[in-house]
């Protein structure tokens, strides 16, 4: 993690920023955010995984698929975090 010097913009006595020193409009917008929909699609449509076969070491698909889907959740949020790290 990089440590950077906080800027010290000119301010009014009440603590608000003076006009003109306001930082460039910040936002959380990023096309990477769309990735966050992936875990929802993967888990909120039960017909995708509501079956017994193929089993994985005797565990029905229904269970090991959803446990594996945790990995989808982790990797997508991780990617979005890394891409948006401030």
């Amino acid at each position, binding site marked *: 993690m990089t440590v950077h010097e906080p800027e010290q913009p000119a301010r009014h006595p009440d603590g608000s920023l003076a006009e003109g020193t306001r930082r460039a409009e910040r936002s959380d917008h990023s096309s990477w955010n769309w990735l966050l929909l992936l875990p929802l699609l993967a888990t909120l449509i039960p017909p995708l995984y509501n079956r017994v076969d193929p089993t994985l070491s005797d565990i029905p698909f229904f269970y090991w698929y959803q446990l594996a889907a*945790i990995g989808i*959740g982790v990797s997508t949020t991780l990617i979005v975090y890394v891409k948006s790290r401030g």
Partner: protein
Amino acid sequence: MFDNVNTVELAVFTALFVAVSALGFVAARWRRPDTLDHLDEWGLGGRNFGSWITWFLIGGDLYTAYTFVAVPALVFGAGAIGFFAVPYTIVVYPIVFLVLIRLWSVSHVHGFVTPADFVRARHGSSTLALLVAITGIVATMPYIALQLVGIEAVLKAMGVTGHIPIIVAFTILAAYTYNSGLRAPALIAFVKDTLIYIVIIVAVIVIPYKLGGWDEIFGAAEAKFKASPNPGDGVILAGPAQLQYATLALGSALALFLYPHSITGVLASRDRNVIKRNMAALPAYSFILGLLALLGYMAIAAGITPITNDAGKADSNTIVPLLFSEMFPSWFAGVAFAAIGIGALVPAAIMSIAAANLWTRNIYKEYLNKDATPKQEARSSKLASLVVKVGALLAILALDPQFSIDLQLIGGIIILQTLPAVALGLYTRWFHRWALIAGWVAGMAVGFWTTYQIQQKLFNADGTITVVKEHFGGSGFPLAELGFDTTSSIYAGFLALLANLVVCAVGTLILRVTKAPEGIDRTKPDEYFADQDDPRLRDIAGVMN
């Protein structure tokens, strides 16, 4: 009180419990603040927790003892539907990822402690803020009470009966929460979660091995559900149950971070990156929860029969403790029980702190003592945390615990009704404040009406159906009741939220046409992106308080 007690289990359990309680008192000196007489310190641990502490704290907060006991119990009883806890805790983090960092930012700029603080500033309506605060308190209370049910299940499995042990445990909890505030559960969470991880990992390796493999376990479960006349159970979802499964997972996920205790954990973190990192790291708990759910099937394969309670009903919450007792040597069963018991203390502490903060900030300071100093606020919260815990204790001891279980079921549905004001409010001010109030009323009405209609049915072997419970029998509302030609059910909270949103939208349009007065928004757009290095942080909060 102590007939047939397993002394080794009880000794290990008690030793760990006492050690953790000591930790709770020591916590007041941990990351020592200048004073604990400020809500930012007592109620939010100094607003400075880093990634690790936050991970343990929120993990310990969301994945409660009751969850650990009730989810396997549901899988034990009904099968696949109980596994909804896994998709629920998968989707929650991507859903709230962007929302929580906005909430964190605006809360830090303004010094908000509760979600209702935000609502008041954003929508300029103290009535709406009061509704959000009351909703939060009402939804949290039964949740605290249910943590006692978790402890009770463990005590029963060890052979300890009667109410005195629970009263003692909760008194200790109340004392160190009063003393140390949020630092106590944060520190204890390290112990709790470490124990939970060890126990579950050992359990999913040792128990299937002892039972002859996963094939045996799922085979036993399948045989049980095949023999059962209930069409809704099974190792995979029955067709009509799929809609309920998905809406229950989504609805629960939307509700989770509206609970005041979840928000307390989020606001206690140091910066936006701490929250983002945790959204990626918290699913580790979901994995443990998924494995835990499978303990329900292991209990079936092991032939566990739940302990019958005083009312003569089988208490399925006892199956996991009983399974541990049967499968593990006594000393390790003691460790496992301690994990669950301590697992009840962390969320109970955070929940009581969150409810107390709501009381202080949005009722006491708003209506009773407008000029309250930070010290008076902290004092009010500390006392309220005691009152909340006594209330939870009475709810379990004096009333039927079933009452708390029903209330908690409704708790998820009512907290969901704060979504438009809090979560959507973070993104838009399009909704009129009065429409948000009307939507809340509509959502509450639909939520209560639907859950009141839901019966709990027992399917008899001869094909007849006995209604075990006339009202509040679950959260799956049959769509047929609305005139749809289907046997599918839908999560009642979902319907309530839809009604809420429709009323919010229609109400806003009407109020705009009639030019009803808008509330004043005290937040500014770029405050929703402020981070820890922002020079305005806290300065502004200082000016405003």
